[in-house]
Structure formats: C-alpha cells, structure tokens
C-alpha cells in the first residue's frame, strides 16, 4: 500500500503527514508529563516538609550533560543526511544510542543505590513521585533507543530506496528525542535541586 504525503507536503497543511503526526503525539506527551508535574505540585504544596539533598546531584548533572550531548548528536545525524553524508549520519546516530544507553546505566546505579538503602517508591511521597517521573522518562529513553537501533539496523536500507522519506523518519525520531531531552531539562532542577 502506498501511503500518501510521506515526503511531499499536503496542500492543505503544507506538511508531510508524519510531521503533523509526530507533533500531535508530542502534544499528548506534554499532557502526560504535565499531569505528573501537576501531581508533583499538589504533593509538594500539600506537604508539611519536603526532603532536600536526597538525590545524587552530581550523577543527575552528568545525566543532563549526556542527554544534551545526545540531542546535539541526534540533530547532527539528521543534518548529515541533508548534506548526503551517510558515514557521518551513522556515526552520530550510533553515538546518540550509546549516550542514551549510558544515561540508563547511570539511572540503574542511582535506582540500585536507593533500593539498597530500602528507599523504594513506598518509602516517602517524594520518592514515589521521583520514581514515577524518572521511571516514565526512562521508559521514553528506552523507546527512543529501540527506534534508533531500528534505523541503525534494518530500517537503514530505506536510505537507498527512498532517501527523502528516510531523512524525514530521522527528523521525526529527532523531534521525539529532543522532547525527551526537554522533559529531563525540567526534571533535573525540580527533583534534584529544589
């Protein structure tokens, strides 16, 4: 089946369907994380005390640097395709996957440290919202890794058959990935610093 408007722009929207689709998906994601941030505000303003210094700020900052760097490599992966540099594209995309994996490894050590001290989600209200927010964010990182690995592996052959559509797919993956980075940009100060 031939899906229309995967590369060419629709006359009414001026956009390829995938582009509008990914933005509508991201809009729903804003509401998903927004609901949890709203929950955080209710819990925090309603509590008599709120813990400070419970989390490892150094590890959180390192993870922020990792995600920002991965956003740069992701946009460079797309830009390399636009410049018809396939080798650079592969390098940047694989780099993004590796950075995402390092982020999750750091998160694993952080979680393991909490559980070793008996600080699970049921330990306190703060840890409950911390594990919910960072857990959901971590699942998004995992989802991003799966999609990027697909484009590193079996999905890469589209570059030969339909390079414009492949570039669009990488652009949409990038939009998702930058959103995941954007969420962390707010999660880091809210959970680790304030």
């Amino acid at each position: 089946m031939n899906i229309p408007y995967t590369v060419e722009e629709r006359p009414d929207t001026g956009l390829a369907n995938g582009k509008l689709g990914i933005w509508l998906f991201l809009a729903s994601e804003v509401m998903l994380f927004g609901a949890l941030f709203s929950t955080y505000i209710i819990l925090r303003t309603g509590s008599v005390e709120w813990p400070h210094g419970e989390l490892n700020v150094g590890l959180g900052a390192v993870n922020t640097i990792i995600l920002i760097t991965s956003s740069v490599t992701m946009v460079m992966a797309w830009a390399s395709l636009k410049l018809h540099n396939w080798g650079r594209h592969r390098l940047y995309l694989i780099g993004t996957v590796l950075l995402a994996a390092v982020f999750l490894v750091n998160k694993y050590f952080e979680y393991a440290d909490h559980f070793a001290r008996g600080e699970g989600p049921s330990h306190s209200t703060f840890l409950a919202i911390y594990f919910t927010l960072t857990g959901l964010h971590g699942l998004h990182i995992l989802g991003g890794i799966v999609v990027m690995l697909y484009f590193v592996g079996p999905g890469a052959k589209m570059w030969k058959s339909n390079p414009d559509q492949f570039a669009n797919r990488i652009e949409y993956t990038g939009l998702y990935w930058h959103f995941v980075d954007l969420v962390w940009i707010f999660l880091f100060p809210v959970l680790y610093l304030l």
Partner: protein
Amino acid sequence: MHSAPPIRKYIFIGAALLVFTGITVAANQLHIPIQWVAVTIALVIAIMKGSMVAAVFMHLSDEKKWIYGTLLLTVAFFIVLMTIPMFTVMDTIGTPIHPPAAEQPRH
C-alpha cells in the same frame, strides 16, 4: 526546510545548554535561603534551556502554522493542567462560614 542545516548553530546551542546546566548547579550550591528565589532562578534557566531546544533543535523557530496551532492548543490545556492544583487550595467545602464562638470563661 530546504536550506543547508546550520551545523555551527547546533554546536553553539549545545555548548550554551551545557553552560546553563553548569549555572543551574552552581546556583544550587549557593544555598539561597529564600525558597521562591531559588525556585524562580532554577525554573527561569530551565525555561531558557527548553526554549533553545524547542526553537533550534526542534526547528520551532521556522515551522508551519499547523504546528504552531497544535502547540497553541497544547499550551492552553497545559496551563489548565497546571492551574488545577490551585483549586485544592481554594476548596472551602467543610470550612465553617462563621468561626465558632469563643468559649465563655467559667465562673
């Protein structure tokens, strides 16, 4: 987007994001005693960083009106979502309209 991607701009924004992350952590180390000042500084920097990611990496500075329309609607609903917690503070159900009369001193 048909023009060549602005590679230098991407690297510059990436570097700026790292600098702002450093500023956020450094500001936290100052241990500002007034809570609302600390919250404001952290959130202002986060909003600046988020805007840079959205404008440059997500190309929102140069998009079609359908994308802006979608985001405008999202922002409106997001504001509603963030305002909902205020109703929990404003809730007066169960609060007596007239305060209970002060107990008379016993003789």
